[in-house]
Protein backbone atom coordinates (compact mmCIF):
# COMPACT_ATOMS: atom_id res chain seq x y z
CA UNK A 1 0.00 0.00 0.00
CA UNK A 2 1.26 3.49 -0.85
CA UNK A 3 1.29 5.88 2.12
CA UNK A 4 1.75 9.56 1.39
CA UNK A 5 2.73 11.88 4.23
CA UNK A 6 2.32 15.63 3.84
CA UNK A 7 4.31 17.55 6.42
CA UNK A 8 3.98 21.30 6.86
CA UNK A 9 5.80 22.07 10.11
CA UNK A 10 9.37 23.20 10.62
CA UNK A 11 11.57 20.87 12.64
CA UNK A 12 11.59 22.29 16.15
CA UNK A 13 8.39 24.28 16.72
CA UNK A 14 6.14 21.35 17.66
CA UNK A 15 6.90 17.73 18.53
CA UNK A 16 4.46 16.57 15.86
CA UNK A 17 7.13 17.22 13.21
CA UNK A 18 9.41 14.67 14.83
CA UNK A 19 6.77 12.16 15.89
CA UNK A 20 5.07 12.19 12.48
CA UNK A 21 8.45 11.45 10.92
CA UNK A 22 8.73 8.47 13.28
CA UNK A 23 5.34 7.37 11.98
CA UNK A 24 6.60 7.51 8.40
CA UNK A 25 9.63 5.42 9.39
CA UNK A 26 7.39 2.89 11.14
CA UNK A 27 5.23 2.69 8.02
CA UNK A 28 8.26 1.88 5.91
CA UNK A 29 9.46 -0.64 8.50
CA UNK A 30 6.18 -2.50 7.95
CA UNK A 31 7.03 -2.89 4.28
CA UNK A 32 4.70 -0.23 2.93
CA UNK A 33 5.67 2.19 0.18
CA UNK A 34 6.16 5.66 1.66
CA UNK A 35 6.39 9.07 0.02
CA UNK A 36 6.87 12.30 1.94
CA UNK A 37 6.27 15.83 0.74
CA UNK A 38 7.71 18.61 2.89
CA UNK A 39 5.31 21.47 2.27
CA UNK A 40 5.48 25.11 3.32
CA UNK A 41 7.71 25.56 6.42
CA UNK A 42 8.46 21.83 6.52
CA UNK A 43 11.01 22.51 3.79
CA UNK A 44 13.24 23.78 6.63
CA UNK A 45 13.42 20.17 7.84
CA UNK A 46 15.43 19.44 4.69
CA UNK A 47 18.19 21.99 5.31
CA UNK A 48 21.53 20.23 5.30
CA UNK A 49 23.14 22.58 7.79
CA UNK A 50 20.79 22.52 10.76
CA UNK A 51 22.29 22.43 14.22
CA UNK A 52 19.94 21.71 17.10
CA UNK A 53 22.46 22.03 19.89
CA UNK A 54 21.41 25.58 20.62
CA UNK A 55 17.82 24.48 21.25
CA UNK A 56 18.88 21.48 23.33
CA UNK A 57 16.91 19.06 21.17
CA UNK A 58 17.94 15.89 19.45
CA UNK A 59 18.98 16.95 15.93
CA UNK A 60 16.18 16.38 13.46
CA UNK A 61 18.62 15.91 10.62
CA UNK A 62 19.58 12.45 11.92
CA UNK A 63 16.12 11.05 11.20
CA UNK A 64 15.83 12.91 7.91
CA UNK A 65 19.14 11.42 6.79
CA UNK A 66 17.96 7.97 7.85
CA UNK A 67 14.96 8.03 5.49
CA UNK A 68 16.76 6.34 2.55
CA UNK A 69 18.01 3.63 4.94
CA UNK A 70 14.34 2.79 5.53
CA UNK A 71 13.81 2.66 1.75
CA UNK A 72 11.99 6.00 1.79
CA UNK A 73 13.34 7.48 -1.39
CA UNK A 74 10.37 9.56 -2.52
CA UNK A 75 11.20 12.73 -0.61
CA UNK A 76 9.84 15.88 -2.17
CA UNK A 77 9.31 19.58 -1.70
CA UNK A 78 7.58 22.22 -3.80
CA UNK A 79 9.89 24.51 -5.67
CA UNK A 80 7.45 27.40 -4.97
CA UNK A 81 8.00 26.88 -1.23
CA UNK A 82 11.76 26.90 -1.70
CA UNK A 83 11.76 30.08 -3.78
CA UNK A 84 9.37 31.98 -1.51
CA UNK A 85 11.68 31.26 1.44
CA UNK A 86 14.83 32.18 -0.51
CA UNK A 87 16.41 28.78 0.13
CA UNK A 88 19.12 27.75 -2.29
CA UNK A 89 18.88 24.22 -3.71
CA UNK A 90 22.45 23.62 -2.58
CA UNK A 91 21.31 24.01 1.05
CA UNK A 92 18.82 21.16 0.78
CA UNK A 93 19.56 17.50 1.26
CA UNK A 94 20.55 15.78 -1.95
CA UNK A 95 17.94 13.05 -1.60
CA UNK A 96 15.06 15.56 -1.63
CA UNK A 97 13.62 16.46 -5.02
CA UNK A 98 11.52 19.37 -6.19
CA UNK A 99 8.09 18.64 -7.63
CA UNK A 100 5.46 20.84 -9.21
CA UNK A 101 1.95 21.43 -7.87
CA UNK A 102 0.34 19.30 -10.59
CA UNK A 103 2.78 16.48 -9.70
CA UNK A 104 1.76 16.84 -6.05
CA UNK A 105 -1.89 16.55 -7.04
CA UNK A 106 -1.11 13.40 -9.01
CA UNK A 107 0.80 11.98 -6.06
CA UNK A 108 -2.16 12.62 -3.73
CA UNK A 109 -4.60 11.11 -6.21
CA UNK A 110 -2.45 8.00 -6.70
CA UNK A 111 -1.69 7.27 -3.01
CA UNK A 112 -3.76 4.77 -1.03
CA UNK A 113 -3.43 6.62 2.28
CA UNK A 114 -2.76 10.34 2.66
CA UNK A 115 -2.03 11.89 6.05
CA UNK A 116 -0.98 15.44 6.83
CA UNK A 117 0.86 16.65 9.89
Amino acid sequence: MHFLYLFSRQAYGHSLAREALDMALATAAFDQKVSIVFLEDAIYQLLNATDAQSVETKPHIGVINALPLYDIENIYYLDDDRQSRAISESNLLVHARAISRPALQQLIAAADRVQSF
Partner: protein
Amino acid sequence: MSLCFAILVTGQPYSDQSSKTALQFCKAIIERQHSIYRIFFFNDGVHCANSFITPPQDEQAIPKQWQALQKEHDLDLVICVSSALRRGVIDQKEAQRYDVTGHNMAEGFNIGGLGQWVDACINADRVIRFGS
Protein backbone atom coordinates in the same frame (compact mmCIF):
# COMPACT_ATOMS: atom_id res chain seq x y z
CA MET B 1 -22.60 1.23 2.55
CA SER B 2 -20.88 0.50 5.83
CA LEU B 3 -17.33 1.74 6.20
CA CYS B 4 -14.56 0.84 8.62
CA PHE B 5 -12.65 3.79 10.14
CA ALA B 6 -9.17 4.23 11.57
CA ILE B 7 -9.12 7.27 13.85
CA LEU B 8 -5.99 9.15 14.88
CA VAL B 9 -6.24 11.60 17.78
CA THR B 10 -3.33 14.04 18.17
CA GLY B 11 -4.97 16.85 20.14
CA GLN B 12 -4.92 16.98 23.91
CA PRO B 13 -8.13 17.35 25.91
CA TYR B 14 -8.91 20.78 27.39
CA SER B 15 -6.35 22.58 25.22
CA ASP B 16 -8.18 22.24 21.95
CA GLN B 17 -11.47 20.95 20.64
CA SER B 18 -10.10 18.09 18.57
CA SER B 19 -10.36 15.21 21.06
CA LYS B 20 -13.99 16.12 21.82
CA THR B 21 -14.73 16.36 18.11
CA ALA B 22 -13.15 12.92 17.68
CA LEU B 23 -15.45 11.56 20.39
CA GLN B 24 -18.51 13.05 18.74
CA PHE B 25 -17.41 11.80 15.33
CA CYS B 26 -16.93 8.27 16.67
CA LYS B 27 -20.40 8.33 18.25
CA ALA B 28 -21.91 9.60 15.00
CA ILE B 29 -20.35 6.93 12.79
CA ILE B 30 -21.34 4.16 15.21
CA GLU B 31 -24.92 5.47 15.18
CA ARG B 32 -24.86 5.25 11.39
CA GLN B 33 -23.81 1.59 11.49
CA HIS B 34 -20.21 2.14 10.44
CA SER B 35 -17.42 0.45 12.34
CA ILE B 36 -14.17 1.57 13.96
CA TYR B 37 -11.11 -0.60 13.41
CA ARG B 38 -9.00 1.21 15.97
CA ILE B 39 -8.61 4.60 17.65
CA PHE B 40 -4.95 5.48 17.99
CA PHE B 41 -3.86 8.26 20.35
CA PHE B 42 -0.63 9.85 19.23
CA ASN B 43 1.49 12.87 20.16
CA ASP B 44 -0.53 15.10 22.55
CA GLY B 45 -3.57 12.87 22.01
CA VAL B 46 -2.20 10.40 24.59
CA HIS B 47 -3.37 12.75 27.34
CA CYS B 48 -6.90 11.49 26.59
CA ALA B 49 -5.88 8.31 28.45
CA ASN B 50 -4.77 10.10 31.62
CA SER B 51 -7.09 8.94 34.40
CA PHE B 52 -5.64 11.60 36.73
CA ILE B 53 -7.44 14.31 34.74
CA THR B 54 -9.84 15.93 37.19
CA PRO B 55 -11.90 18.72 35.64
CA PRO B 56 -14.31 20.90 37.65
CA GLN B 57 -17.66 19.22 38.30
CA ASP B 58 -19.51 21.21 35.67
CA GLU B 59 -17.08 20.16 32.92
CA GLN B 60 -16.96 16.82 31.14
CA ALA B 61 -14.18 14.37 31.97
CA ILE B 62 -12.95 13.50 28.48
CA PRO B 63 -11.01 10.33 29.45
CA LYS B 64 -14.15 8.99 31.14
CA GLN B 65 -16.17 9.63 27.98
CA TRP B 66 -13.67 7.63 25.92
CA GLN B 67 -13.83 4.86 28.51
CA ALA B 68 -17.63 4.78 28.38
CA LEU B 69 -17.64 4.62 24.58
CA GLN B 70 -15.01 1.89 24.63
CA LYS B 71 -17.02 -0.18 27.06
CA GLU B 72 -20.29 0.26 25.23
CA HIS B 73 -18.95 -0.70 21.80
CA ASP B 74 -15.87 -2.76 22.69
CA LEU B 75 -13.57 -0.35 20.84
CA ASP B 76 -9.84 -0.81 20.42
CA LEU B 77 -8.23 2.27 22.03
CA VAL B 78 -4.45 2.32 21.71
CA ILE B 79 -2.05 4.97 22.96
CA CYS B 80 1.33 5.27 21.29
CA VAL B 81 4.01 4.09 23.70
CA SER B 82 6.71 6.59 22.74
CA SER B 83 4.28 9.55 22.76
CA ALA B 84 2.83 8.40 26.09
CA LEU B 85 6.08 7.80 27.98
CA ARG B 86 7.41 11.21 26.93
CA ARG B 87 4.25 12.81 28.34
CA GLY B 88 3.96 10.83 31.54
CA VAL B 89 0.98 8.68 30.59
CA ILE B 90 1.95 5.25 31.86
CA ASP B 91 0.39 1.88 32.65
CA GLN B 92 1.32 -0.45 35.48
CA LYS B 93 3.66 -2.58 33.38
CA GLU B 94 5.66 0.36 32.02
CA ALA B 95 5.72 1.94 35.50
CA GLN B 96 7.40 -1.20 36.82
CA ARG B 97 9.80 -1.36 33.90
CA TYR B 98 10.93 2.25 34.35
CA ASP B 99 10.69 2.17 38.15
CA VAL B 100 8.13 4.97 38.25
CA THR B 101 5.89 5.50 41.27
CA GLY B 102 2.24 5.20 40.30
CA HIS B 103 0.50 4.79 36.97
CA ASN B 104 -2.30 6.73 35.35
CA MET B 105 -3.44 5.07 32.13
CA ALA B 106 -7.21 4.80 32.23
CA GLU B 107 -8.84 1.39 32.03
CA GLY B 108 -10.08 0.55 28.54
CA PHE B 109 -6.94 1.90 26.83
CA ASN B 110 -3.93 -0.16 25.78
CA ILE B 111 -0.34 0.89 25.18
CA GLY B 112 0.94 -0.04 21.73
CA GLY B 113 3.38 0.88 19.01
CA LEU B 114 3.13 2.76 15.74
CA GLY B 115 2.84 -0.58 13.96
CA GLN B 116 -0.69 -0.78 15.28
CA TRP B 117 -1.52 2.50 13.59
CA VAL B 118 0.02 1.32 10.31
CA ASP B 119 -2.04 -1.88 10.64
CA ALA B 120 -5.19 0.19 11.22
CA CYS B 121 -4.47 2.33 8.14
CA ILE B 122 -4.05 -0.77 6.00
CA ASN B 123 -7.22 -2.46 7.20
CA ALA B 124 -9.64 0.48 7.45
CA ASP B 125 -11.54 2.04 4.56
CA ARG B 126 -11.06 5.58 5.87
CA VAL B 127 -8.27 7.23 7.86
CA ILE B 128 -9.09 10.42 9.76
CA ARG B 129 -7.00 12.52 12.11
CA PHE B 130 -8.28 14.84 14.83
CA GLY B 131 -5.82 17.48 16.01
CA SER B 132 -4.34 20.73 14.76
